[in-house]
């Protein structure tokens, strides 16, 4: 039987998500790199007490709508709806303003484990690569070293950093095929290929599903073996002269325009 990892909806893609799950969320800070539709589906699913692993804790949809992002949700959808019990994150707060995560933290409603960005990437990669841990030179003499084994190798001090094991990885790619092979677009790659395959179940949200064989084997970034499910975003239509026929796209466009209006009226 042909392998087919394609699922038809975001809700179906996260149907087995459960309370207390540990989820890796790919991307960086900017929304273009994030699996926004999957995060919305996780929110709709209603799961709580999640442990999330991500680079940042989100800016919120309003910020991205104003920049014209067609899929504007980021980690903030799980933060502001208080679905997170513990966040393992590299950049939890902003120097520019007090974000929703900082407010929850101050209210004692979420637990924080802050990890240097490169160490976060390597701990995730260790889980994916079947390693028991990695010795990392970053964090010596700082809060990061607390409670960790130290080892001197060739005269330099290292900390033993343990793999982060997760139940789900939610990643965003540009194109994918039914085997789960993925390519990315520009700087929207970030943590996505690092996290692919680092959880029991990896779910890829793609801009476009293509036929098997269409992706150049020399250019595939994530081999399909790391990916369990592939789900395609609704097509985004030019809002100019093009007539929009897709019902879902029309609805999301209308909602988007209303939201932008609301946000700009504030």
């Amino acid at each position, binding site marked *: 039987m042909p392998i087919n990892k394609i699922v038809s909806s975001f809700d179906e893609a996260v149907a087995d998500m459960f309370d207390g799950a540990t989820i890796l969320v790919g991307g960086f800070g900017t929304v273009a790199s994030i699996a926004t539709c999957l995060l919305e589906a996780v929110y709709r699913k209603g799961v709580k007490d999640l442990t999330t692993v991500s680079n940042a804790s989100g800016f919120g949809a309003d910020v991205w709508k104003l920049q014209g992002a067609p899929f504007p949700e980021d980690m903030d959808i799980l933060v502001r709806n208080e679905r997170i019990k513990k966040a393992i994150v590299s950049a939890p707060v902003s120097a520019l303003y007090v974000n929703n995560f900082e407010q929850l933290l101050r209210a004692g409603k979420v637990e924080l484990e802050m990890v240097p960005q490169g160490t976060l990437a390597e701990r995730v990669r260790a889980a994916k690569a079947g390693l028991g841990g990695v010795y990392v030179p970053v964090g010596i003499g700082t809060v990061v070293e607390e409670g960790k084994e130290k080892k001197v190798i060739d005269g330099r001090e290292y900390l033993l950093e343990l793999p982060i094991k997760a139940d789900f990885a939610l990643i965003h790619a540009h194109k994918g095929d039914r085997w789960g092979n993925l390519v990315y677009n520009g700087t929207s790659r970030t943590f996505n290929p*690092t996290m692919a395959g680092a959880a029991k179940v990896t779910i890829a949200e793609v801009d476009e599903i293509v036929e098997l064989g269409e992706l150049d084997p020399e250019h595939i970034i994530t081999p399909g073996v790391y990916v369990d499910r592939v789900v395609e975003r609704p097509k985004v239509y030019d809002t100019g002269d093009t007539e929009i026929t897709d019902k879902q796209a029309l609805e999301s466009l209308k909602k988007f325009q209303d939201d932008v209006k609301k946000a700009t009226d504030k």
Partner: protein
Amino acid sequence: MSENLLEKEKLDRQVMALRTAKEFEDGLCVNLGVGIPMLASNFVPAGREVIFHSENGVMGYGEITLPGEGSLDLVNAGGQTVHPQPGMVFFGHDESFAIVRGGHLDISVMGAYQVSEKGDMANYMIPERKIGTIGGAMDLAVGAKKCIIVMNHVTKTGEFRIVKKLNYLPTALNCVDMIVTDIAVIDVTDKGLVLKEFAPGWTPEEVQQLTEPTLIIDPDCGEITLM
């Protein structure tokens, strides 16, 4: 500390960035932190080819685009859209930090709240909020071959920022090689802090008054040169 030294004219952000960019030798790979460091990308000396690395997975990108132009799929670590240019390459996060941590980055330029005479540096904890974001700062401080800190020499109220011992939580120990401030350029060496250059109108003695550790005055110490 003398009140009038606080009011004395200092270098502005653009000039600090210009002085920093003088360090970008031909062919080097450089990572720029947010703030004044990012301005330095505008001042690469003519005729030099410098490759900029951004932690979000790109090397060899071009200048920042005008607002509203550019693609959200091509941004620097501060989320600003940048221009593509020939030779540019994208990579995932593990690769990005293998470049940083593995010593493949020649220079990392960052801002900081404090630097100690041993080159310890604090820049992630926001002092007034007692909270902060580590992000890539610890990796960049430890991993780059040369770490340059660009910051104002003292706080707005005149407190030392170049100190004997940090009183903020450190980002990394013994990591800073050079400090560019609004009144001086200082090298961090095994022997101590060496004053190399001072701003026009300033004297080494005045720079010392705004610096907690004792400065070693370099025999060639003189006014800041930008080219």
